[in-house]
Structure formats: C-alpha cells, structure tokens
C-alpha cells in the first residue's frame, strides 16, 4: 500500500492491529484483553522468571528431540514411498489419514502409552509433524522429473548415487517446505499437548495464568510462542528461498 508516495510494507499492517488491541485494552472492552503495552511490560518480567526459563528449556528440548526424529523419519518415509510403489500404496493411506486426523483426540491416549514425562511430549511433536514432512518429501521425490532420473541411470549411477546425488537434491525444495510446515505443526502440537496434559511446563503456566486471571502474563506467554513459531518458520523459509530458483524451473 502507498501512503503519500511511500510504499509501506505489509507487516506494518500488524501495527494497526496492535494499535486496535491497545485501544481495546485501554477501553477495558473485555477483561481478558489487557492493553498491548502492559503485555509487553509483562513480557520482560516473564522471560527472566526462572520457572519460565526452565519450562521453555524443557519444552524446547522435547521439541528439538521430537523434530529430529520427525525430520529423519519423515524424510525416510517419504523416500520409501517415493521410490517403492508397493510401500506407497500401503504407507500412503496411513500417512494421509494421520496427516489430516484430529490428533488432539489422540493426545489423551498417548499418556497412557508413553507415561507422564518428556517422552509423551516428544511423541506428540513427532506425531504432529512427521506426516506432513513425509508427504512433502514424497511429493518432491515423486515429482522429480523422470528425465533427471533417467539421466543418472544412463550415465551409470548406482542406487546410492541416484539417491544422494540426484533424488535428494531434486526433492530438497519440497523437503524444506515439509520441514517448515512440520515445525509449525509441531509447535501447535506441543501447545495442544501441554494444554491437555499439563505435564510439561508451559501448559502449566498457561493454566495457572488463566486460572488466576493473570491475562497480561497469559498474553505475554502466547506472544512468545507466536514469535517462536514465526521465527522458526521464517528461518526455514529463508533456506527454502535459497533453493527456490530450481523448484520453479522443473516440472
């Protein structure tokens, strides 16, 4: 949008929304919505609290471990589906079901199976993100142009070379897109899991804050999570744009 001849980047429209929030908060329209400025104020005190740091660290650990398994597992799954027809017709169905299943209903069951500790949270991260990574990887492998594969074979590539010198790189843009979506889903999964179980720290904080009507803290915590999710997806988005030039040039 242009104002007085200057191009204003779209992100600035967020400022309008934040402004509305601030006004609504100051007018006391709803008691759950404190002014944005006081949320920001709470933000600084929140992030130095040691229970927050412990909670964040614990959550991040589960997140990192889970993502590691989801990424490796998802890519492997995608490659198996992309290179083997039989595997695809079996796995494809399951992956598609789980990718769109209401996993929030599974969370109560997971605790029964994986206990009360970090393991459950790790499993939630994996469960929320692995399917989309597998699907995207599969799409990348599946759509790798036939002539690229044939090129490899005609110049004498063996299976390993085909996989690591051609297929992997050809599928990379889709893999990265899958990882980005997987990360977003994992963050959502962690929040859903912690809200439903309160096993791990952040969920506990959410619950405490909302029970005690501490809405500044509540929004501050939400804001941190949002920023975290956006940060991660932007980072992966950066990587993605680095390989974008060749995602567009092939069929």
């Amino acid at each position, binding site marked *: 949008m242009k104002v007085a001849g200057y191009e204003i980047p779209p992100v600035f429209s967020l400022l309008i929304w934040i402004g509305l929030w601030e006004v609504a908060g100051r007018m006391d329209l709803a*008691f759950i919505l404190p002014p944005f400025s006081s949320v920001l104020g709470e933000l600084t005190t929140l992030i130095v609290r040691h229970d927050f740091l412990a909670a964040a660290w614990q959550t991040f650990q589960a997140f990192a471990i889970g993502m590691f398994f989801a990424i490796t597992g998802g890519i492997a799954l995608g490659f198996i589906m992309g290179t083997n027809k039989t595997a695809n017709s079996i796995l494809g169905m399951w992956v598609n079901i789980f990718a769109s299943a209401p996993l929030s209903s599974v969370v109560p069951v997971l*605790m029964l199976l994986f206990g*009360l500790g970090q393991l459950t949270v790790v499993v939630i991260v994996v469960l929320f993100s692995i399917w989309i990574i597998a699907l995207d990887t599969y799409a990348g492998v599946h759509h790798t142009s036939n002539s690229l594969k044939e090129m490899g074979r005609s110049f004498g590539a063996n299976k390993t070379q085909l996989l690591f010198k051609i297929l992997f790189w050809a599928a990379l843009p889709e893999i990265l897109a899958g990882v980005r979506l997987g990360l977003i889903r994992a963050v959502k999964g962690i929040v859903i899991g912690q809200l439903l179980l*309160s096993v791990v720290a952040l969920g506990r904080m959410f*619950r*405490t804050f*909302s029970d*005690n*009507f*501490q809405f500044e803290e509540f929004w501050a915590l939400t804001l941190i999570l949002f920023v975290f999710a956006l940060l991660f997806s932007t980072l992966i988005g950066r990587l993605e744009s680095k390989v974008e030039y060749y995602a567009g040039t092939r069929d």
Partner: protein
Amino acid sequence: PSAFAQDKGTMRVAFGDVPGGEMTNFMIAVARAEERGVKVETVFLKSEDLAAQAIVSGDADIGVGTPYGLIQRVNAPIRMFYQLSMLRFYPVANAEKYKTWKDLDGAKVAVHGRGSGTEALMQVMAKAHGVKYESVSYVPGSGVRAGALMQGRIDVSIVDYERKRLLEREAPGKFVFLDIPDIKATDEALYANTNWLQKEEAAVAILVEELIKTWREINEDPSKIVSLRDKYNVLPDIEKVEVDELLPAFKQGVSINLFPSNGGTAASVQEDFDFFTTSGSLEGNAADLKVNDFWYLGPATAATAKLDAN
C-alpha cells in the same frame, strides 16, 4: 538426624491440578518427609482423571482425589489411605436472577465434571428442595467457572472456598451463596496401588506421619503456613496473587475444618459412603459398602497412634 537421612524409597505423586497455593501444606509435609529420607517427585496433570489414569497405568504411585467410582467400577487394587481435605463447596447464583434454592427450578447449572462431588452436591440439594434443573453442564475448574460467572456466561454454579473468596472480593453483592447443610465428606484423599502400599510401607508411614503433623500444626496456628513455606522453600514459583492469598485462605480453611487432623477413619469413610451413594458416584447401599474395599487405613491409624502417644 543423619541416621534418618538414608534413602527410604521414592514416591511419585500425581496431582490433578496445576500447582497453586492450596497445595502449600502438602508440600511442606513432603519437604519434611524428604528430610527423613523419602524422595518425592511430583507431577501436575490437567485433571483428576488423568491422575487416576497415571496410577492405574503405574506411571505414578500416589494420586490425589476421591476415586470412589473408579475403585468400585474397575475393581482396581487401588485404595485411599490419607484424607487430605473435606468437601467444602459453595453453590453460587447470580443475585439478579436467583435468591434461593427454590428459584433454581429450570435453571442451567454448571458443575465440575460428570460424577464429580460438585455434581453430587448440586443434585442432592435439588432433590432436597424439590427442584429440577433444565440442564447440567460440565465446566472443569473452579477458576473457570468463577470466570464464567463474572462474565455472566453462567448463572448458577458451585465453586470452592478459594473462588468463593475471589467472587466476594471481585464482585461484591453480585452473587448469592446458597446455604447447604453441613456435609461431611472427603474432597481430596491420597490413594495408591495396594501392592505398592505394602512394598513401600516404611516410606508411606513417614509421609503420613509428616502429613498429620503438619495438618495439626496448621490447624493450631494457620499463620504457620507462611513461615513454614519460607522455611522449607516450597512452591517458590507460585504467583504473587496466590502468595498474598495464602494466609487468609488457610485461616478461613481452618475455621471451617477443612483439614482433618487424623488422616481419615472408619467413621469418616462411612460418612463418605453416605454422601457419595446419595450423589450417585457410588452404587448400592451405603450400609452395605465395606471400608476395606476402598480404604487402607493402616498408615493413618498407626501414625495417629504414634503421634498421640508422644
């Protein structure tokens, strides 16, 4: 004292709630038990049924709640062994619309959960006053119900004494608290698997002793809750609002006999049977139920005897 500091076993306690000021007395007792060599790990789950599930599946050793229905239905070898607090709930209604129990005919009521003590209480009262609710909906968490009440989203509910204080403080005059007869029933108890209780007899004995000791101390002088919390540095992270509430809350709690001082007896269990059969959580006739099918009173009896002897 060093002789006591040796390892007496580990116990994992599963709460059906997030940590809050109302757990301070329990955590003090835990800290004292730890001084005597019992290691206690705590997990905080979203709801009581999750805690029960953790005990059933063996993920935790001790649960917090009143799983009468569970014990009767699943035939699980689970027994309660320590009575933590008495049922103290306060039916509340929007003062603009309702004044007495009689007005509640055809009202929409929100309680904690299906089969919960809160539902039981509301149903018992309805029966007693001959009214019929239009619907009963389930809204877990006294805090949530209090919030919804303040927002005018619900008009009739039932809250714990802590939220009652909150409602009185935040919106004086807006709500009426309906009177209920003195009810003698357990709100929260500790329970565990019988095998585990036998295996960890020593550790359980220590924990129960410290619980009773602490409960008695606080019943004698509620202000001790603050000094003991500082001394043992329990729940250092609870919110400031909760810290401020600590003393008044416990003072009032003591004044209404919230904290039984002997950990449960055959008589208190019998009272539970009366209440929970009326409410429908337990099936059958109160007189036919056997204490030993639900409670393992050994540790509490022993500890009371020991402490009384001193």
